[in-house]
């Protein structure tokens, strides 16, 4: 067992089932995430990795099963409640960064803080610090369409971490990057997460990306199998 697994899990999924029409994505998936842990969720395309992540984050509601975040039963919360939870406790990184194209990189990073009620000046000051921490301070005033893929992804990591969430969900965060940029993004993501004691759910099908995790699970046929404890 990893040192991070001491104590109760921060996030726990139990017996998740989810189907999209005739396609079964999850068929009884169960998984736990502990505080400060980096968990790699691996598996082939279409295995249900992303659906599992979406259920854990409260983006998608499972057909059956439960998700608990601390004492909160996420699967019984309202849409607004889950939105509030994601806004306050979680951060997200997607494959292509998925930044809001009209906003500058700085505004993108500051947005979660402003949604939480912080005034622009304060939000942007914090955002600038995070951009600097991720080595992309020079693109602050540029729009996402004007920066490279690697820079955009680092901006997305800054956006995910700016509120200092307790859990970061990263769905193929290096999938659109070359290996060098991918390594850099993973390094920065995991370092920053560890500094802030954030747990990370890392969905990937690349072994070199999974190597940054503390623990690895594999999703196959909609079921989770814990395959290793790396630290």
């Amino acid at each position, binding site marked *: 067992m990893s040192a991070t697994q001491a104590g109760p899990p921060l996030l726990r999924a139990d017996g998740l089932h989810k189907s999209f029409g005739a396609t079964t994505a999850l068929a009884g998936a169960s998984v736990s995430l502990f505080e400060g842990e980096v968990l790699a969720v691996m598996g082939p395309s279409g295995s249900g990795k992303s659906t599992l992540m979406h259920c854990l984050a409260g983006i998608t509601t499972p057909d059956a099963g439960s998700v608990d975040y601390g004492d909160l039963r996420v699967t019984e919360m309202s849409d607004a409640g889950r939105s509030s939870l994601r806004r306050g406790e979680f951060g997200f990184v*997607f494959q292509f960064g998925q930044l809001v194209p009209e906003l500058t990189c700085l505004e993108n990073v500051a947005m979660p803080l402003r*949604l939480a009620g912080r005034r622009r000046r304060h939000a942007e000051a914090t955002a600038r610090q995070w951009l600097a921490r991720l080595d992309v301070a020079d693109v602050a005033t540029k729009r996402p369409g004007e920066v490279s893929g690697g820079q955009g992804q680092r901006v997305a990591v800054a956006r995910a971490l700016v509120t200092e969430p307790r859990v970061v969900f990263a769905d193929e965060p290096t999938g659109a990057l070359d290996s060098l940029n991918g390594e850099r993004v993973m390094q920065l993501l995991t370092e920053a997460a560890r500094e802030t004691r954030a747990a990370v759910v890392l969905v990937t099908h690349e072994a070199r990306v999974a190597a940054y995790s503390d623990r690895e699970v594999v999703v196959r046929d909609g079921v989770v199998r814990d395959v290793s404890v790396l630290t």
Partner: protein
Amino acid sequence: MSAVPARPASTLSTALVLGARFAVGSRAALGRSLLTAVGIGVCVAALLLAAAVPNALADRDLRASARSDSTFGEPALPAGPGTLLVGDASTSLDGAGVRGRLVLAEGPRAPVPPGLVELPLPGTVAVSPALAEALDDPDADALRARLLYEVVATIGPEGLLGPRELAFYAGDDRLQADRRGLERRIDGFGSAAARDPLDGFLLMLLVVGVSVLLLPMLVFVSVATRLGTERRDRRLAALRLLGVPAATARATAAVEAALGAVAGLVVGGLLFAVGRQVLGQVSVLGLSVFPQDVRPVPVLLLLTVLLVPGLAVGSSLLGLRGVALEPLGVTRQSTRPRRRLWWRLLLPAAGAALLAVSLRPLPVGDVPDTRLVATGTVLMLCGLIAVLPWLVDVVVLRLGRSRLSGGGGRAAVAWLLAVRRLQNGGSTSSRVVSGVTVAAAGAIALQMLFAGLAGSYASNTGADLARAEVVASTYGLTIDQVDTAITTVRDLDQSAQVLDVTATDLTVAGQDLDLVVGSCEALAELAETPACRDGELYLIDPQGILTSVPGAVGQLSSGAAVAVPASTTTVPGRVDPTGLLLDAALLATPSAVDLSTATGLRLDQYVRSHDGTPDALAEAVTTALVQVDPLPVVRVQETAEQSNRFTGIRTGLTVGGLVVLLAIGAGLLVSGLDQIAERRQVHAVLHAMGTPAGVLGGALVFASVIPVALGTLLAVVTGVGLGALLLTVAGTTIVLDPLGIGLTAATSGLVVLLVSAGLVPSVQRSSHQGRLRSE
């Protein structure tokens, strides 16, 4: 073996194939093309409708001429085997006009009106289908009480102006020729007299109105063509990666747009075909039209068929100006060229100049050149389309830096998203809103024009509504019938005030004058009768020709004698409630004269209601009086009477305005749905991050409110300016109608806000349905 280079396919054929594939090649493409086709189709349907107006008006005129029974300016006919007596029994039903005619054949060859096979016999009636429906209504007791005839036939389409027209022909043997001029003798229906051409100012109103209605439609063709442009640009970039030259990529975009436009023409044609059938079923502001009369004028049809694809292709190519389609993706010019104002101002300036040219002094009775005025108006409104994007750009730039953007919380984020979206793609929003702006500006200008010209097409009736709201006249009565009529009307509404005077012709001392009998209160409406008591008589003699009347004995047309006491005083007349002043007349209180043997009496009743519904009161009075006289004349008093043509154009343009507003709403909806579809993924990510749905909806509403507010401001300024110029051209005083302007501006704003609010659920849905998976 040597490699033979493949012969490159021609730009056009490649573009045709690719354009077609892009337009319908996948489910998403088909959906997008359908959306474009619907957007363009709505506009095309409106354009076709406008193109059909001249034919619809001409056919309506033909129908009106064919059934005309007017004898105005024609010599009186003697009764004969081919003559017919016709009386106008038009009335109203719930405020809607009912055209009614009482007929009585004077011989076996009496003419039959269009739409009927034979004349209705006395006691029977032929009704229009709409009136038949109204009579079948269980609540139509009052109407049935007014039409005391057995329904035996239905008037065919040839005899009606529109399918929903309320009309009847009733056979009635109480008609008497020359009884009082209400009945006319005719030997055939139809008027050969050509309808007078519209006078210059009415033509100007019509041309300006039609321009105002059609311009927003053309704006929306351009908007609908640019649906899904971001995805299209990505497809074109992918083509470039495959080695397709830039020119072919652009040609492909043009073909795709042209195909969308052609599909739009087909959809528009279908909507038009369905719409004109619907037109046959409904009546808007009292207007209904036969589907077969709604045929586009061939030249205008051809123009629409050519203009719409041309505009679509042109708009699509213009949209690609700031886009570089490179093999590795689409790059938009990162620093957009600054929008220049000067050329945008050229259009309204040219328009104003043309209108100014029309201002040159004209010979008396001459009217301004309608073509100049129409071109000037169109240029001014086109200028609005050009200026709005510049204005939106300038303002959102400042809004982005303003303190409004400095706050925190959901509203601040929604505001930020909206402002940045406008800064990035403001031209799309401006284009969408410019249709509304043009319509609002045009409507304001028209409103001013109508308000300014209304005086020229209205005459003051002199009626005093405070003294009588409804005036009923019944003719050819005996004193018993007079008493019945008085009682039935008084019994209608105890709270209504009814004053009656009975009149007949009197000859005294060789002078013809009116004998008017009524209570002191009633006579006080016609003359100044101080200290009036029953038994008194008064003379009205403004010309001083009745000096020999007092002390003489006069004779009624029935032969009865009327003695005029020598003590009869002459009093000044008073303008009656209808605005008329009696000339030579003898006024008598009831016990002063004996009318018991008189015939051919006229009863005038002045009725004032206390519940403020004169239309309903008039209908009730008519219903009561037809029991006594088949042709009572019951009028709701109005202080001014407007020219029928002026009112007709106003009604037509109001109906057109409603159609344009609906089309604009539909266009906005289609465009909004497309923008949401383009942003599905961004919405999904924002939702995943926990962004409340209200923020996304708020951003959408803000992104509409900003251009709408600016557009409305511009519309008011341009509309008032244009209206003032047009009124000056028409040589009329400039009249501002702040309430009307406010209502127009508010209505256009409301349409945009309602559509935006209606789109909020789609935004929320899109954020849940957007794809987050990226493998």
